[in-house]
């Protein structure tokens, strides 16, 4: 167990091959395997993103794996309660490194609409228990927002953005 209550592989390898690493990162970024893990309302939007209209397969992330041992992206899509938190951490620990976390929706970011004085069952933000890479605001966010988060993650992994930024309309 690490400092924050979970084990994180942060040590760099002794020998690092820059070009090989770059190539590997490109491969990782374009074949992210998310975990089949639905918590609440946002899970339905995640499913929508995987289905025919939004088609997450265009970005190589359609292989949803029910087992954390085969996944490298955890999408926290919903409210994490105090009863659920140990399970979420266990699942994250079971994922092989390198691994990433997307906090989808307001509940995962900060507790969202369910924070009030005297609440007794909520983790106010999943970043208190897991290292989050990308935050997606919304209640629930649209599937397009999840796709954009995937692109942001890709940018984080490889350092460059492959897909163009959509034009701003507002």
């Amino acid at each position, binding site marked *: 167990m690490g400092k924050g209550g979970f084990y994180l592989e942060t040590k760099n390898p002794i020998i690092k091959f820059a070009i090989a690493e770059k190539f590997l990162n490109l491969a990782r970024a374009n074949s992210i395997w998310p975990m089949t893990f639905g918590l609440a309302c946002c899970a339905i939007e995640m499913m929508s993103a995987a289905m025919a209209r939004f088609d997450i397969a265009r970005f190589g992330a359609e292989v949803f794996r029910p087992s954390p041992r085969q996944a490298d992206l955890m999408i926290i899509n919903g409210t994490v309660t105090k009863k659920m938190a140990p399970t979420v951490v266990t699942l994250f620990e079971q994922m092989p490194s390198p691994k990433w976390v997307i906090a989808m929706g307001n509940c995962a970011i900060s507790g969202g*609409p369910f924070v009030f004085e005297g*609440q*007794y*069952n909520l983790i106010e933000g999943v970043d208190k228990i897991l290292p989050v890479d990308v935050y997606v605001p919304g209640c629930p966010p649209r599937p397009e927002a999840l796709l954009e988060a995937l692109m942001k993650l890709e940018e984080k992994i490889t350092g460059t953005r492959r897909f163009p930024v959509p034009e701003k309309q507002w």
Partner: protein
Amino acid sequence: MVKKTSDDIKNTLKGVDVVEISYTERGYHLAIEAQKENIVSIVEFFDKKSFYLADLCCVDYVDYLELVYFFNNHKEPCRVKVTLKVEPDKPSAPTISHIYTIAHWYEREIHEFFGVYFEGHPHLVYLFLHDAIDIYPLRKKQVSVTEDDKKLLSSFKPEEFEDGFFINLGPQHPSTHGVLRVVVKMDGEYIVSAEPVLGYLHRMHEKMAENRSYVQFLPNPPRMDYLGALNFNLGHVTTIEKLCNIEVPERAQYIRTITAELNRISSHLLWVGAFVADLGGLTPFLYTFQDREHILDILEGITGSRLTYCYFRFGGLYNDVDDAFIDATKQFIKHLRGRFGMYEKLVTKNVIFINRVKGIGVLEPGITTKYGCSGPVIRSTGIPFDIRKVEPYAAYDKIDFEIPVGATGDNMDRYMIRIREMEISLNIIEKAIEKLPSGPFKAEKVPKKLKPPKGDVYHAVESPRGELGVYIVSDESDTPYRMKWRVPSYSNLMTFPYLAEGELISDAIATLGSYDLVIPEIDR
């Protein structure tokens, strides 16, 4: 029916006062004040008359706690409220779990949220809350958990079990549709017993209701049941309209009916996909989502959101519908009718699918009153119980529609009923659009800060999963004193331990899928 029940109670139960209540104002017909000595005999009476336990909840009045039992009949609406006062210090009451099986869970729920001890309950352990809780959350004054109750916190303690093993189905499991956990005791491939563990998504809606004004609570119900969001929204607003006596214009009633039915179709479509995916067929999932996206587009046009709609307001709607909505809905009706043939070929007539669901998970009609099931689960046993028909709300009384019922009560029946219901929903929408009157879409003079008169109200609507009841106690302030949600999946899921016993684990997955569970709704 109401008169007969009232007379029956007076004749058989001596010394019990029955008060007739105005149904249009309060939402129930009869009220009985019970004592600790006679509560069991009163409940036994209702069990004999084949009433079902619609709801059991507790209200904290500081001076005393009040247990509220709601009974109803499947044949004709006759809602009876039975109240039982218990003292606030070390509260206890006799259990009724040996009479109604569903009371097992209701009593456990009350025990952990209010600290009421039920004498004679066989398994009074915590159901919802996490291990570190040290208060009874829904008590008005802060009361810390007693030492005796702290021992009951962790509900799963594997006992000595030599010839088998335990399987933990969930909380992260693709076929539980969320974060439900079922502890299954196995003997080889067969299930010895199954025990659902709830509360992995307990989001404190009922506590929140007591902290927020009526208007501020509007976005919560859609997040309770995100698939039938408009139906939950409707249940919430109609209850408060009943409490405050607000008249809703006819146009709003029709639009409510149309949008709620559209939402029902989208919920059922998702269920068909998910159910077949549970059984191993992933293709229909893609097709149903494609159809579902059409509904989301239509509803997004008028409500502004894709999933958690908050469209209905007290006394009407957020905004009026336009011609584009009507045209799109008409087009969608035509489109979906053309798709049913494809679904029949793809799923209904698929031999693998039929073999996996036919004759599995058979629910007999006799035991449904014990569990208080509702929705497609009870209709599959052949009982035509539908709140839209027996206690009409919105514009359902002005539209003629039929209720599909099953014959055997197995998983195939539950599937067929939902498919039929989608077709019937399309008919309802078509008729409602034909009859759609013009006029205002919002009641005038609805105050921004609602302060309902003192009293309580129970109101039920038919959500895609069954009877959704809202019980509100008002104390004349702008926040509810207590708001209890009677949710359909809760009582439907209670039948799972009964149906899974002795089944193969793969068949139990099919049964679990057939309930159409939405976990946030169960956990609230």
